[in-house]
């Protein structure tokens, strides 16, 4: 074999390192053969390092930064230090506001905190009212749903009024939220409007702890019958904004 540079004949076999490099070159050629044309152009122009840098900045760095941020926030949370805690709270608030975490989450009803069934029986004389124990924080989003309201006779001599009047009222935190009729199905939203209205008269920060059901005076005057109420209370994780609320009804 004659090399063009020297014109001399090289009869020595290639060293293992040279053979290894030659193999790598061949593998590289095979890999490049499978690459898309645009990528081949980048390699042909000698921009491979710039390409790798771009991949690192655009693809690897963002999750790495998020991972590092989460790591250091977690580490800050383990420190029993006022400054560290304040720093952590500030950073978290900035992240929440910057990424609109609450806003995005509140667009769906999927963030259910808890669900409580309603299965209440009221009787005019024996059980004119009943309380259900709940826990709703100030400005926490909730809904009270009624799937069935039935008024039935309890003994053969009992006859029920067929008038269209309200049978019972529902109150939350001492404030009446609805009055319902026989066979009425409805959903009461405890949202921004309700809270704005409620907080006009109540300035306590205590959570609401009861939903109360009370028969109306018309039903109270009866001597028989019972009201059966079926439904549910949904309490969401969303805490509504304390900032000025536009009341739209």
């Amino acid at each position: 074999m004659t090399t063009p540079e020297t014109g001399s004949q090289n009869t020595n076999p290639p060293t293992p390192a040279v053979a290894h490099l030659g193999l790598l070159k061949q593998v590289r050629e095979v890999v490049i053969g499978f690459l898309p044309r645009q990528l081949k152009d980048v390699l042909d122009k000698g921009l491979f390092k710039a390409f790798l840098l771009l991949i690192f900045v655009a693809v690897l760095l963002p999750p790495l930064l998020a991972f590092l941020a989460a790591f250091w926030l977690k580490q800050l949370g383990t420190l029993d230090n006022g400054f560290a805690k304040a720093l952590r709270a500030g950073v978290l608030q900035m992240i929440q506001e910057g990424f609109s975490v609450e806003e995005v989450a509140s667009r769906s009803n999927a963030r259910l905190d808890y669900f409580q069934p309603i299965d209440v029986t009221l009787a005019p004389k024996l059980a004119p009212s009943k309380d259900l124990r709940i826990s709703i924080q100030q400005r926490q989003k909730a809904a009270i749903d009624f799937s069935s309201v039935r008024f039935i006779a309890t003994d053969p001599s009992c006859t029920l009024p067929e008038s269209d009047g309200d049978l019972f009222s529902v109150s939350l935190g001492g404030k009446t939220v609805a009055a319902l009729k026989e066979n009425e199905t409805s959903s009461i939203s405890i949202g921004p409007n309700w809270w704005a209205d409620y907080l006009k008269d109540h300035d306590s920060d205590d959570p609401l702890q009861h939903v109360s059901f009370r028969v109306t005076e018309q039903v109270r005057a009866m001597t028989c019958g019972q009201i059966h109420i079926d439904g549910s209370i949904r309490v969401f994780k969303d805490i509504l904004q304390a900032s000025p609320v536009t009341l739209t009804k």
Partner: protein
Amino acid sequence: MKSYINALTSLLVALAATSAFASPWWSLQESLVFPSGDGRQIRADVLTVDLKAANVRIVSVPFEGGAGVSSSEMSLRAFAAALAASHPRYRSKEWIALNGAFSSFRADVPLGLLVVDGKVYSTLSREKAKPGWASVGIEFGQLRWSGILCQLKSTKAWDIVAAAIYQPGLCQQALQGGPVTVASDSIVAVALNEPRMEKAYKRTMVCLTHENTMRLIVVTQEAHLLPLAQWSSRAVSAGGLGCRVALNLSGDTSSGMVIRSPANAAPRYLGEGSFPIPSALVVEARLPSP
């Protein structure tokens, strides 16, 4: 000649398959058949009550059976056994019982209007009909439980009225059910797509004819409402039941009829009647006027 023999054979088979029992105020035709619409023949037992000679009562099963609401749940069979064994009014006489309408949140609590002897035990259900629900027409298509079997307070006549136009105080006795299957003088009130939309069930249906009779229909095979409505609305001369109005009551395992005669120790049961029911119809001979 061959077709004549076939027709004769069919007639003999039909005569052998159906049997009839009668009393001065009721008659029973067992195993009548009607086409299912998908090539099968459905069997039904039909008891016809002469309203001039019989007294029909709508009753609350827990109250009439001697229990209070929520203290006991009774099926038609258990209710009939209680009437036959110990009820002062029914212990020693002939009567017929049919399951009533649907249950509410508990099996012994009626769904919708139940008026017994002028007393309102349960008020009207105004649940809206589903789109494409079985009953059609302006009056009968609005509410899910679209009809009320009603003995009018004013004339004591029986009718099936649309729940959507019911007025309080209209009925001395009333039972809300649905859907209304035959309305306004023998018009089929079931949507044509009902067999595709709904499941087939064993059925109980009550119907009123032009001849002042009430038919109590128990379908012991699973059937859709449309073929049942088509058959029952057809004139008797055309092989139907001649119903001018008809109302679907609770079906499936609730469905059943009981015939009790003092001559026989045990009541006779048609249909399953094994599931607790909130209401029933009880029919007895009308007492002669004093």
